[in-house]
């Protein structure tokens, strides 16, 4: 007797619940699941098509969340940076906030080079030859200067070696080419990626500076998407 030959095709449907309805739900779930799983990457609704540069003004629709200043959508993301021990505890707050020194005065390379640069020691001494010469930190600085050395500052904002980031182009886009901005407000531009350094002494990393952080901002502000633009 070939008992196995009898497969169970004589089953009758007993509608426990409607399968058609369930399949309709499935279609929807698949569609939404597929779309959202892959598409929810990055800035959600802000996702602009990466290739076409929309003409200026077109992006300024009202539902665009406002950045810290006109013409830019601030990159999202925060980071709790650790305190870096520097050879001299440089007070950014004192210089940039209290004394209202423009960021670009010291980080002068930012507008003409890929790197912003640490100011040369001669620049520090330019003022501190006369100002606050009795403070311990300045004494330490003077010591270095007299030895003919620069203080070995520690890098706080460091990108991996395969990443190319240029300060000059970002400043050009957000500051110099931005009709709503003036050079005096450069600190707001810097703050996009460096956090509010004005309120710190030694700079702390406050933004994650990850690729996602970069790409989200590039999406929101129509930056380029070519991998080779940033990866070397």
């Amino acid at each position, binding site marked *: 007797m070939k008992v196995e030959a009898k497969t169970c095709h004589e089953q009758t449907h007993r509608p426990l619940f409607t399968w058609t309805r369930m399949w309709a739900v499935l279609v929807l779930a698949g569609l939404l699941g597929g779309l959202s799983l892959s598409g929810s990457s990055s800035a959600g609704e802000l996702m602009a098509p990466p290739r076409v540069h929309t003409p200026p003004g077109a992006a300024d629709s009202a539902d665009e969340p406002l950045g810290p200043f006109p013409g830019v959508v601030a990159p999202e993301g925060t980071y709790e*940076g*650790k305190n*870096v*021990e520097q050879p001299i505890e440089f007070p950014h707050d004192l210089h940039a906030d209290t004394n209202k020194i423009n960021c670009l005065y010291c980080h002068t*390379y930012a507008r*003409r*080079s*890929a*790197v912003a*640069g*640490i*100011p*040369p*020691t*001669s620049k520090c001494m330019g003022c501190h030859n006369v100002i606050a010469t009795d403070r311990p930190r300045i004494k330490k600085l003077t010591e270095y*200067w007299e030895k*003919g*050395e*620069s*203080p*070995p*500052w*520690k*890098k*706080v*904002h*460091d*990108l*991996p*070696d*395969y*990443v190319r980031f240029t300060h000059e182009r970002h400043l050009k886009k957000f500051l110099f080419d931005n009709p709503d901005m003036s050079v005096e407000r450069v600190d707001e531009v810097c703050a996009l990626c460096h956090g509010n350094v004005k309120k710190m002494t030694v700079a*702390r*990393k406050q933004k*994650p*500076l*990850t*690729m*996602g952080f970069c790409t989200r901002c590039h999406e929101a502000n129509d930056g380029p998407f070519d991998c080779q633009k940033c990866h070397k």
Partner: protein
Amino acid sequence: MSKIEFDRRDFLKVMGVSGVAATVAGCDMPSYITSEEGAEEVIPYLSPEEFVIPGVGVHYASTCLQCPATCGIRGRVREGRVLKLEGNPKSALNTGKLCQMGQAGLQTHYNPDRLTKPLVRKDGALAEATWEDALALIEEKTGPSSGLSGGRFAWLTGTISGHQSVLLKAHLESLGSSSHFVHEVINTRVWQAVCQDMLGQSMPRLRIDKAKMVLSFGADFLGTWMSPIHFSADYARFRSGEDRGMLVQAEPSMSLTGANADLWVALRPGTEGVMALGLANVLINKERMDASALPAAALELINQYGVSRTTKMTGIAGDRLIRIARHLKERSPSLVLAGASAAGHVGGYQSVQAAMLLNILLGNIDQTIEASGDFALPQLASVSGGTSDLSRFADAAGAGKLDAVFFDGSNPLFAAPNHLGLTEKFDSIPFKVAFSQFMDETTAHADVVLPMASALEDWGTHVAAYQGGDHEIAFQQPLMEPIYPGTRSFGDMLLALNSMRNPGSYDGLEDYYGYLQSAVGSIPGVLKGEDDEAINVSAWNRILQDGRLQMPVDTRAFTSNLSMDDMDVRDADPAFPYYLVPTPRGTLYDGRHANIPWLQESPDQISKVVWNSWAEIHPVTAAKLAVEEGDVITVTTPDGVLEVPVYIHKGIHVDVVAVPMGQGHEDYGRYARGRGVNPLKILQPGSDAKTGELALYGSRAALAATGRAGRLIKMGNTETQHGRKIVATITAEQQRRNEGDS
């Protein structure tokens, strides 16, 4: 990468630690992690110049010293490091182009095997010493109190020119000596002698670009002969357009130029002159060319070399000879060159002479061979070296005529054939000082070794022996601050040596830079007007920015003094049936670049071998020896034996074995030591009668298979295209039809 004016020389400091290590193998980190804060240091400049911006490269002009051609270079400098060398477009000699040796100048500069401290021989061994000790020893042996003077002191250098040459001569004069041996293995001395004798100018300008046909007897003008980069640009013009020139190369083993020839002729070594005379014979007797310009003695000689005799002696088919002659006649102006393989024989002078005779017969003088005149400042002109100085030096040293010798820029112990017995003679000199960047064969035998700054850290002026059109002084300036504080500038050393002999002679000059500036300032009309006191700084800066200083060209015409001697062709010795050719290649050159990893790994242009020596033989020879590619053979001359793997190709005369020079270092850096063989060592004695140059191409050898397979490391695993269209070739006729305008 904008070019910014050079302002101050002391600004080539390496910036910060992290500036140097800017690119470390950083690929390992996944990109969702960023670098840790505070992990790296960034050290700013103490007080920067306006034009130095971190992250922006600046170009500085200088001069390449990788070979004697003195091409202009520009170095890309960033954060105080020189990153890349490029040709200097302002240089008339190389117009922005550079060869592989020039590119590799960086690795001479950054070489890990550079000497960093002075060495002094103590108890038979070299030991580290301070500069003060070393200089004190030199003062003791060669200073005024040493009693050394006259011919008992000598300098042995490579090709030297410019203000270094001036100071060196001053030093020799201060010792009352005139013994300056200038040694270059790869040289054009015979050519210069022939030009001097026949045309009255040793370095006439060669207009390859104007020629419609170039017949070259072993002149590897694209590889190592005279000024290869200059000639390469000329060659490009020669090859383009409707009048695309024809290149015929006759030589025993294929050089880079031969590899580019329309027609490559395998010539029995030493018969270059015979072929030239045979061609002259055909031109006069068959092609009815006007031979009135030639003296009767020459005509008589030419008539002795009829087609059949020439064919028999050279091994070239008669119809081929006639065809070349016909082309020479049709394609006027032409240019006949004779290079190392023609000159490197006992009768080398005559061979080159015959080639020059052919030029005269073809009417090329003042057409493609232009008068170049002498350099306006003869004291700066290039003192070109040769191998005759090597044998003279060996003789002098062997005869015990030398008490103290200074060495710079040359490695005679590597290049000297065994028969000169130079090592023993060298060791017999009581006091030997080597100015060197590296520990090489010569340095290792010296008594005092002074570590020199590299070419990219030093000041200097150079004058090319072969000037490409405009006469120029090439300026060498530092592209970065010395990597090793223990090294010193050669110019500074010359100044120190001079002041050692004549205290106070160069007072008021801070260093060689100061000397150079004042010396250039003393050239009328360059930095100062007639009655200016001070130097025009911006003019000086402009010179440094250009890296070149134009000098007025002397337009002295040729004088003609035609003579012709009979060929001196030696017969084969049946015990040594093959000719040994030590091939010069523009890679390791005469061996000085053997410690440059880029060049060791740069495949040879012809055989594509890397990191080793090889012997080129013809397939017929290989069949006789029953060897295949990579098998080791012995190359035996009466002066020694080499064991070397073979590379078999048809670009070589059947009776020739070619071993490239450059490898076989016993004492050099890590990349060179113990690698390959040095063919120069086993060359047979013999020299050109007129110039005294060693007959480098005149050695005979016997070959034998060892039955072992050797290590022949090659790039590429095929010799043919297997029927694919990889390099397609069309005839010049087709090209001429279609490319009239370019």
